[in-house]
């Protein structure tokens, strides 16, 4: 093959190629992880549906009187198990309470349990996971073993035990503590894995080389870049906590019957399941729709923040 001559080909000069090396090419709009995620979310109809549900539930929880003039505590046995009528679109419970009004006023309990659980989970889980991963060595061994102990106890079982023991002090905060106090270990694990990855990136080393202290670097650079899975987990956990409260109340060890909550209403309506199924159906629907909205929101945020998930669409 040595006798074959190799022709020297030179492409015609394309003026488009003659651009300056490494020219700065800025888009018209700013772009960053969060801005891009927001743009992605704004394009998805499901996001609006979930947000509207969350907003409606939150408004109902804060200002129930915007939605109804009725007193949810006023029972009239004359209307026991009555069907829908004018001004009472969802009918009545066995005690003659208005179902619609009970759902509106119950939102506040369910949502505050969810929010408290998230706050408690975050308050314990974030420092435990972040400190363990970031400082490593014995700090990691100690904090992770503590986490493992809590992880080994099914949080719902633990909550059942706590609520049974504290039967005299059943209120929203205690129930949130019972759930959140045992549910944080998963969050700590998720965050620990994330921080382990982020802490080896060069910008963390760069921050220390500049003179920022280790702890300050953790707060300023490592945590903000590890929060994506935390936000997703907490959004979903909020929904799960609402379910947990309803389940505990349903079992009779959650909130006392005097507190209005979807779980209590479901528990009371089960006795009339055959005769008045709708009194059970409506609070269950409210619960399901709310929990679903939070879970969908969590998953949408995960998709929006994860460029890999975005590419696969």
């Amino acid at each position, binding site marked *: 093959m040595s006798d074959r001559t190799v022709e020297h080909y*030179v492409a015609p000069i394309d003026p488009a190629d003659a651009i300056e090396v490494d020219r700065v090419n800025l888009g018209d709009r700013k772009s960053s992880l969060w801005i891009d995620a927001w743009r992605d979310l704004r394009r998805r109809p499901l996001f609006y549906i979930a947000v509207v549900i969350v907003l409606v539930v939150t408004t109902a929880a804060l200002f129930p009187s915007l939605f109804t003039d009725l007193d949810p505590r006023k029972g009239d046995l004359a209307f026991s198990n009555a069907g829908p009528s004018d001004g009472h679109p969802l009918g009545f419970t066995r005690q003659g309470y208005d179902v619609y009004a009970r759902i509106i006023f119950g939102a506040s309990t369910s949502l505050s349990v969810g929010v408290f659980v998230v706050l408690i989970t975050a308050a314990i889980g974030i420092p435990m996971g972040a400190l363990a991963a970031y400082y490593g060595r014995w700090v990691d061994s100690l904090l992770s073993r503590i986490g493992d102990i809590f992880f080994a106890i099914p949080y719902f079982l633990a909550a059942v035990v706590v609520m049974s023991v504290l039967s005299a002090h059943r209120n929203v905060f205690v129930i949130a503590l019972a759930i959140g106090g045992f549910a944080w270990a998963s969050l700590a694990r998720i965050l620990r894995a994330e921080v382990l990855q982020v802490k080896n990136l060069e910008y963390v080393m760069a921050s220390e080389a500049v003179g920022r202290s280790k702890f300050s670097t953790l707060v300023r650079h490592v945590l903000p870049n590890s929060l994506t899975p935390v936000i997703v987990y907490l959004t979903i956990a909020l929904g799960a906590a609402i379910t947990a409260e309803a389940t505990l109340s349903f079992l009779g060890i959650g909130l006392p019957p005097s507190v209005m909550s979807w779980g209590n209403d479901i528990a009371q309506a089960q006795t009339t399941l055959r005769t008045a199924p709708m009194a059970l159906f409506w609070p269950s629907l409210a619960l399901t729709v709310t929990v679903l909205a939070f879970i969908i929101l969590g998953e949408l945020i995960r998709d929006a923040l994860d460029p890999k998930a975005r590419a696969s669409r």
Partner: protein
Amino acid sequence: MSKETTVETTPTNETVRDSSMPLVQVQDLEVTFVTGSGDVQAVRGVSFDIYPGETVAIVGESGSGKSTTATALIKLLAGNGSITGGKILVDGEDITEYSERQMASVRGGVIGYVPQDPMSNLNPVWSIGFQVREAIRANGVASGRHEVEAKAIEVLEQAGLSDAARRMKQFPHQFSGGMRQRVLIGIGLGAEPRLLIADEPTSALDVTVQKVILDHLESLTRDRKTALLLITHDLGLAAERASKLIVMHRGKIVEAGASLEILQHPQHPYTRQLIAAAPSLASRRIHSSAGDSLTDEGVPDMLRLAERHAEIEKRLATAPIAVSVKDLRKTYSIRRGAFKSEPLHAVDGISFDIHKGTTLALVGESGSGKSTAARLILGLEPPTSGAVVIGDTPMTGVSARDLFKLRRQMQVVFQDPYASLDPQRSIGAIIAEPLKVHKVGDHEARVARVEELLDQVSLPTALAHRYPNELSGGQRQRVAIARALALKPDVVVLDEAVSALDVLVQAQILQLLADLQAELGLTYLFITHDLAVVRVVADAVAVMEQGKIVETGLTDEIFGNAQQPYTQRLLDAIPGAGIKFAS
């Protein structure tokens, strides 16, 4: 060897072929990727021939379409990519029309493929032997347990693995990078293909290992008369190994022809630019462009260079010492078993001085301890013993508060432009961070300083409000340099700061560093594995091997007359060392 199974569509190796007929003809190949933001044409009308037994290299920067072209040849494009035009003729038959099943007989048997990254291309849960046997069975070169086993051993031995029978039982993590690459080459050549595509086969390896692997690959393909298509970003490597060179840029071929012809008489402006930017042994130290060491035509002005040289020697002799490292050691204990541990001397008593305003290159292969040395010198990790002195203040064994103050005098630029900037902070906040941490100036003063710094690294000041994800690797590295300069340090440690960049961008950044050095009187500690780059940036060189400095000297001395065999081996292994590039 004999072949029991013959494949329908593809002729077997035994057929005698006319070597004047091309083995592979690529005609007007177009490859398009479907992405969220529209279709991207990665390859735009590429044509070339590969003759039997010939070595062809495709050279280009990242994004030039060179790897896409290679994967298109065996139709293993990523899921969102497809061949949207042109033909690929193998022995005159168009394989773009082939079904997956027909392709399976082309892959391995006719066209073998050695992937880029030896670290991720072997499955860690299966033994080496299993993976080689699997490939052999899939290619149908042998059947039956014993024959497959024998063939696997033969393949690995030919790939240069000694003691192959025993090593087959081992797993990928027990193999070094070079050994893994040998296994992949063995698998690629296992079915005796007539063309082997090697996509950056040695980019992840040390230069000395790279040379051994490429030498071996060359002798294997020569003996079997296998054609070789080499995909690389390294012009020197391409010129040294291939008879024919194809230069790609933005999905098109800009120039093709005989390797030496192209390197010495490039015609296309892009090729010329690329060759001029490629650091090679023949290159000279880059100087500040303000100093005008280049004449108007862009060629080095020899007279000015000689003056510069004398000046550097004078500076090395007279300038005060900016950084002094004295007998620095770092010993880690490596766990062996539950209760035993062994010491590992990562840095084993290194000493050197850097004179103010000069550049010392600390060179070594992976595992030489150069990165650990960098961390020790930066005070990111305490040394086991020894001292680092900045100016005349010791940096080791001082209180945290003194260390904090000393950090103002020494800053760092890291290797990976994609990992060294916090993605959630704006460029302005990133550059201002050192000022904020050290409480320098008020808000307005910092904003002004950020603008000044952006200007110094030739970036538009509008960038201050943008985020790193909008920038290219080279631009991010400029931001990292601006951050390092924010506190007006005396010393900047450049830890593989240009290793991840394409050659044109790399040349640009090196020029920027030289300009800044002249302008601000900076002292650089340049840590790198790349000797060719050392040639163009350093005044003095220290060569590290296994935690020790084996040789130090002025750059010209080391390159002209290395005393240590290890240094000489490193120098000899630089691809294209003996080739004179056009200037």
